[in-house]
């Protein structure tokens, strides 16, 4: 008997409005229908009416968690259009903030995953550590989120020796705590058992559906824009692309924790080799008519901006494709043949940033056509109860 359950725009688990309609038979999900548009703000049309500098603040507010990625991707493209090169020190500072943002985003995600799996103390611990990163970002830029540190031609602020030392100390503290989380994840059979085997996405399915970011890397595809398209200084920085082979939510968690360690490496490299000099060059007001494609590795995947200019102060066209939109077809595949109780975890595993994608789970009874509304917290409670009844898988392979 098939039901359709709507998880509509206002739900307590996710922080953003999206409507998913799922066709269910018993407890097994047979089909998913994702409805977007609750968060569509018409940015591409707005961007055509604002000047190049005003668009930096607009693109920053596409998303709150990955705000610096959108802003950097845009500024990279426009600098190529205007044919200016920011100085080395400015570049290093810009990507220092990028890596700090990646740390804050992954810690946020770990907390949310812990919360969806029922592990609330993990949520509190990771968000407490996130405050260390937020303090560092506030010290560098003045704001906890939406650090408007990019400008056309470089960055707006500089750091001095005392701040540099504080960042290094903060990173050392975070590194010790991340190793603690790694150990919990590996040796805690209840947590691992909750994540293993859930939301499978084989390598061929990930290729067909054009998955990006940690979702693709957990299925064994070694794709990272920092290696494929090394802009600025990423061809000198020492880091590896982290992949896992288990193709499920456990693999995605492992990939994100490994990426945290790579971030610490990159930040230490940046701070030890920070060149001296100015931090920005002057940018012209107009750009020659041209087009540019700018790609960047946001914490959730690949971010791509396509900018066209026509010789005036305003862009002709700005096209943004955020990583979460690219992961939606893959999510539909992942949710099929899963259980209702796993919906919050699978959906949280793609690290949804729906405001980026711009753009409600409904379960419909296929036989009688009646609709039933189920709250996400209800689903989470069902998930916890079902998990308690299941036996704990003690011999799960931790894909290190």
């Amino acid at each position, binding site marked *: 008997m098939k039901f359709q359950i709507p998880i509509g*725009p206002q739900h307590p688990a996710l922080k953003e409005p999206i409507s998913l309609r799922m066709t269910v038979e018993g407890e097994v999900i047979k089909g998913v229908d994702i409805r977007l548009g609750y*968060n569509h703000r018409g940015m591409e049309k707005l961007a055509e009416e604002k000047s190049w500098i005003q668009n930096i603040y607009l693109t920053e*507010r596409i998303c709150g968690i990955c705000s610096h990625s959108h802003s950097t991707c845009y500024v990279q493209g426009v600098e190529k259009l205007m044919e200016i090169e920011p100085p080395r020190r400015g570049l290093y500072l810009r990507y220092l903030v990028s890596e700090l943002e990646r740390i804050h985003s992954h810690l946020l995600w770990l907390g949310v995953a812990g919360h969806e799996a029922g592990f609330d103390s993990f949520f509190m611990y990771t968000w407490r550590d996130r405050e260390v990163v937020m303090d560092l970002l506030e010290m560098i830029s003045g704001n*906890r989120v939406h650090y408007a540190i990019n400008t056309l031609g470089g960055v707006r602020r500089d750091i001095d020796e005392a701040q540099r030392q504080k960042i290094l100390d903060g990173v050392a503290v975070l590194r010790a705590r991340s190793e603690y989380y790694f150990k919990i994840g590996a040796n805690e059979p209840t947590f691992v058992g909750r994540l293993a085997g859930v939301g499978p996405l084989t390598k061929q399915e990930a290729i067909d559906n054009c998955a990006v970011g940690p979702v693709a890397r957990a299925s064994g595809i070694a794709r990272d824009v920092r290696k494929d398209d090394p802009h600025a200084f990423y061809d000198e920085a020492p880091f590896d692309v982290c992949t896992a082979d288990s193709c499920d939510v456990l693999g995605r968690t492992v990939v994100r924790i490994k990426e945290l360690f790579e971030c610490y490496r990159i930040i230490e490299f940046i701070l030890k080799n920070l060149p001296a000099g100015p931090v920005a060059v002057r940018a012209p007001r107009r750009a020659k008519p041209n087009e540019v494609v700018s790609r960047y590795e946001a914490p959730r995947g690949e971010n791509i901006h396509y900018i066209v200019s026509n010789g005036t102060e305003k862009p002709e066209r700005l096209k943004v494709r955020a990583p979460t939109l690219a992961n939606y077809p893959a999510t539909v595949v992942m949710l099929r043949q899963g259980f209702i109780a796993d919906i919050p975890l699978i959906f949280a595993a793609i690290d949804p940033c729906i405001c980026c994608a711009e753009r409600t789970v409904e379960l419909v009874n296929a036989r009688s056509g009646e609709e039933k509304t189920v*709250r996400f917290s209800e689903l989470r409670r069902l998930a916890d109860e079902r998990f308690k009844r299941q036996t704990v898988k003690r011999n799960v392979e931790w894909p290190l």
Partner: protein
Amino acid sequence: MLKKLTRWSRIKSPWILHLNSGACNACDIEIVAALTPRFDVERFGVLLKATPRHADVIISTGPVTRQLRNRIIRIYEQTPDPKFVIAVGACAMSGCVYRGAYNILGGLDQVIPVDVYVPGCPARPDAILDGVVKLLGKL
């Protein structure tokens, strides 16, 4: 006497509902960060509730998109009296950078009546706590 009792019970533990109406998420993570050990809003008795039927205070972020307008009105009607609305962030106040877009109606007060406005882009967790406490002071 009964009035004093009801007033005391309303002040002591407001239960909130978090509503995101098309926001960029920054204000939302600051609201969730207000629950974490550093800012800890639960010492005021504030609990984050899942459904509008249990909530006393609706905390809303983000400019109102056209698709969400009817749903917000429905949620406001589902919340039982007495209810209060807090608009957090510059977007909920007047639309922030998105003013003039074709899918945005403006601030939250175009749709439902608002009691407290908390400015900021995004509003810091301390500011959100300040807003909640000021609301309790108004009661």
